[in-house]
């Protein structure tokens, strides 16, 4: 496309947006609403996934040592635990720590009744890399020497994994449904825009304008509309999520909320890009029908 045409196209985009101001506003609003919906469902998914991961990371294996082990034998066991496949980290809880925790959680008087005796053994908390590995690792630990007892949420793991998987699916489903809704919304709007200008396209073709010349103003217009709509959506979703996260954290303190600003910015930037992309792509697709001779 030549310089003259480029100049014409830019001028045309500006004047067309101005002359069809209500349609432009409607298009911006449509993309904005679609991107707000998409953004909200993306954050829903992120949090659902985050929640699932959080639950899973709570899965731990408690390894109780035999009572007569020396300190050295206990730490040797620790080394062996660390060396097992699938083990991410371990944490030693000495018998003193266990007693103190017990006293704190239940009652001092109960401890005093023990008369200086400490019934707790040294123990390890073992965290695995994947929740699915808990059972296998626990069995292996059980066969190590010096291990008295292995306790893990045997009955809990199955349902928990089911629940967390379900949570992820629901998150993805919500994103998918609203993504489709957004696309429908936007394509309806674009069809309206192109329809309102079909006469212009017809005449452009009549006077011998090439298809690319006809396409460019629509493409740029779609991108501008998408960009503006995406930016508004980003503002709304960003502020809305900020408020929501604070609200949750102050009322439901035990529910983890995704709050890494890096990730949040990525999602918001994605919204602007998708808005622009949909605006441009939508124009091209809707135009195809009209450009056929």
């Amino acid at each position, binding site marked *: 496309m030549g310089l003259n045409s480029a100049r014409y196209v830019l001028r045309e985009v500006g004047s067309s947006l101005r002359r069809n101001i209500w349609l432009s506003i409607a298009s911006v609003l449509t993309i904005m609403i679609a991107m707000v919906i998409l953004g909200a469902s993306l954050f829903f998914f992120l949090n659902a996934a985050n929640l699932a991961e959080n639950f899973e990371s709570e899965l731990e294996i408690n390894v109780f040592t035999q009572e007569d082990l020396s300190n050295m034998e206990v730490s040797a066991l620790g080394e062996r635990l660390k060396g097992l496949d699938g083990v991410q980290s371990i944490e030693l809880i000495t018998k003193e720590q266990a007693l103190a925790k017990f006293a704190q959680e239940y009652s001092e008087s109960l401890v005093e009744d023990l008369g200086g005796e400490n019934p707790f053994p040294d123990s390890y908390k073992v965290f695995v890399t994947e929740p699915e590995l808990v059972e296998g690792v626990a069995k292996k630990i059980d066969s190590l020497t010096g291990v008295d007892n292995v306790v893990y949420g045997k009955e809990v793991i199955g349902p928990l994994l089911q629940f967390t998987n379900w949570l992820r699916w629901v998150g993805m489903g919500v994103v998918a449904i609203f993504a489709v809704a957004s696309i429908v919304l936007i394509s309806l709007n674009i069809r309206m825009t192109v329809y309102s200008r079909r006469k212009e396209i017809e005449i452009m073709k009549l006077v011998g304008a090439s298809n690319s*010349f006809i396409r460019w103003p629509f493409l740029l217009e779609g991108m501008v509309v998408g960009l503006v709509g995406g930016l508004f959506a980003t503002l709304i979703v960003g502020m809305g999520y900020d408020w929501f996260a604070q609200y949750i954290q102050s009322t439901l303190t035990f529910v983890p909320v995704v709050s890494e600003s890096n990730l949040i910015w990525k999602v918001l930037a994605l919204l602007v890009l998708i808005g622009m992309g949909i605006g441009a792509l939508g124009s091209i697709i809707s135009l195809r029908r009209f450009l056929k001779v």
Partner: protein
Amino acid sequence: MIQMTNVAKIYPNGARALVDISLKINKGEFVFLVGPSGAGKSTLIRLLYREEMASRGQVIVNGWNILRMREREVPHFRRNIGVIFQDFKLLANKTAFENVAFALEAIGVSPKEVRLRTKKMLKLVGLGHKENAFPDELSGGEQQRVSVARAIINNPSLLVADEPTGNLDADTAWEIMELLYNINRRGTTIVMATHARDIVEQMQKRVIVIEDGRVVRDENMGAIEYGT
């Protein structure tokens, strides 16, 4: 200029708009296409600027074989053909000047040249004083002048017109015919479909009568007689 050989046009719904048309129009001719409504005049006109494709036969315009033309060649082909319609087809949100300038901008002419040529062309069709008026501020005759200006600003060698006076009163219609007459005298071939009996009779140009998708008469300097 134009050569049609055994052309037929059958629409997907089975309607046979053109059955068997063969005709030849030379450079510089002024030709009227007449015939009752639904005879196929408009279809024939649309074949000439490749708005529609013939189902059978051969159409050659300006040396281009329309049926063998590639999609991306169509814009270039059209730049050498001007088209005017009964309903003018002006853009309502553009001024008279912009409507005409559009045809030049669409093919990448420089802004300076666009201004110059558009102004000159509007003067030529007698609208130099109304270049900033929007279509709804112009009379029917004036709107048709704008559309004529747009059609011929690229100096096309062929101008096709589909009932260009159909929406105009008798006096205004004659003004447009005078304009077309002058354009033809400068060498542009004109093919015009019309119902206006008085115009055809007075202009004394070649008349092709179409009925039921066939050429039933083709006479030079002929008056028309056809069923209504």
